[in-house]
């Protein structure tokens, strides 16, 4: 007869957390930067179709690191949550805070109840009318939620990249400057000195989408061509 070994709850949680952390650190970093023009989201991602960054709602974007199938199912659940909420109340009633708390609860439930925790880390960003009204939330595999300021770095060697971004971040960065800063940050975690535009996934939440582009949907994905031009602007 097989005997169930006793494992203390502390040990069990620690093992699960270590397992998730290892999975997340294996990938490349994703950076979310709040700047004057809005919020820039930059990821190192060689695939042009399997995205790490996505649109959730008018002013809300999503970025993730870790296992694709896991964060993709969370992204789709987020889109459904936001669309149902906006449809049943009003488009203005969909907020990043509400979405982040739903994500926190689902990640927390998976961490404690399922066979294995999700090996993902998420960022939920909401662009506001002014920079002080921007919201950046970081969600980790165990359902912890953190309200971050100015920028978020997730995945890969996040500490190292974070240091580089911290040094260069300023309040009045334009999109071009913020994206260049993020790319410089990504390179510190890399042996190669440079990242081609093809290996980058870049999107922005445009603060002035109504006046600049005539749409309330602030999310815009930048093409390789746009990224090449932005990186070449370097002074």
């Amino acid at each position: 007869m097989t005997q169930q070994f006793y494992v203390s709850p502390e040990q069990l949680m620690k093992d699960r957390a270590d397992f998730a952390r290892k999975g997340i650190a294996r990938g490349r970093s994703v950076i979310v930067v709040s700047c004057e023009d809005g919020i820039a989201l930059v990821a190192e991602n060689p695939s042009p179709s399997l995205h790490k960054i996505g649109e959730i709602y008018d002013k809300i974007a999503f970025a993730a690191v870790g296992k694709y199938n896991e964060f993709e199912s969370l992204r789709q659940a987020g889109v459904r949550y936001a669309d149902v909420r906006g449809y049943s109340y009003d488009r203005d009633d969909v907020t990043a805070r509400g979405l982040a708390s739903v994500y926190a609860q689902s990640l927390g439930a998976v961490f404690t109840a399922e066979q294995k925790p999700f090996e993902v880390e998420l960022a939920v960003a909401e662009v506001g009318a002014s920079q002080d009204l921007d919201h950046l939330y970081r969600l980790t595999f165990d359902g912890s939620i953190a309200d971050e300021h100015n920028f978020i770095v997730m995945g890969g060697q996040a500490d190292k990249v974070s240091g580089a971004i911290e040094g260069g971040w300023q309040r009045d960065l334009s999109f071009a400057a913020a994206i260049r800063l993020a790319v410089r940050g990504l390179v510190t975690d890399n042996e190669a000195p440079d990242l081609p535009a093809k290996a980058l996934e870049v999107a922005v939440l445009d603060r002035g989408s109504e006046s600049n582009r005539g749409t309330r949907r602030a999310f815009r994905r930048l093409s390789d061509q746009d990224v090449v031009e932005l990186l070449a602007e370097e002074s």
Partner: protein
Amino acid sequence: MQETTANKVAAHATSSFTEHLQRDRPELLPQYTPFTAGTSAGQPLAVPHATTIVAMTYAGGIVMAGDRRATMGNIIASRHIEKVFPADQYSVLGIAGTAGIAIDLTRLFQVELEHYEKIEGTLLSLDGKANRLGAMIRGNLPMALQGLAVVPLFAGFDTAAGVGRLFSYDVTGGRYEEQEHHAVGSGSMFARGALKKLWRPNLPEDEAISVAVESLYDAADDDSATGGPDPVRQLWPVVYAVNRAGARRVSERELAAMAGNIIESRAAARREA
């Protein structure tokens, strides 16, 4: 057969917002239970009705315009109602018929298209959008039989083919592609008559907008349920132009100038029609 996890996941994967609501939140879908026998059938409910919509192709895209009147029997229910809506970046939707149901349907259709785009990361094809709308109209058939019909006109720019296309519908959800131009609603007969005389192939955009406004003027002239341009309240039709660059709402200023020209030229002609 044993229900495997993979089966369950696949069965649950949908890019359709309506399907998601049907499964998880059916109470949010617009539902109108048909009246039971006993209530006075034949006597239509007194609810606002939206009236005339016109659409046409022009060089590079399509134009759709709708007047601003809603009627309730012989009463003008609204002078400000808007009946032409952007469905997404490359398509627009105009509605005639029972205003309340039509507005609900439009809202659901807009979310449906945006939801698909966000989940799949790509836009639906124009035919896909047109079919989806047909299915939604079919869903309203029981109400249409009670006199609460919704008849939309759908138009958009087909990015794959590089042309503007028009679609009309009947109450059973039948979808018909229209050539050149089309109109729906109570004043559509008169608007179509005007369009037949005013429309030419490859009109430039500004002339197409002017033709749309003029055909609504003619519809308003003969149909009491269609509102003409109203210089007193500064009310002009709602007009959208869709081309390769996307959908654009024509500004009030442009419309005021065009409507002004039409009224002036008709006044100058000093003729009965």
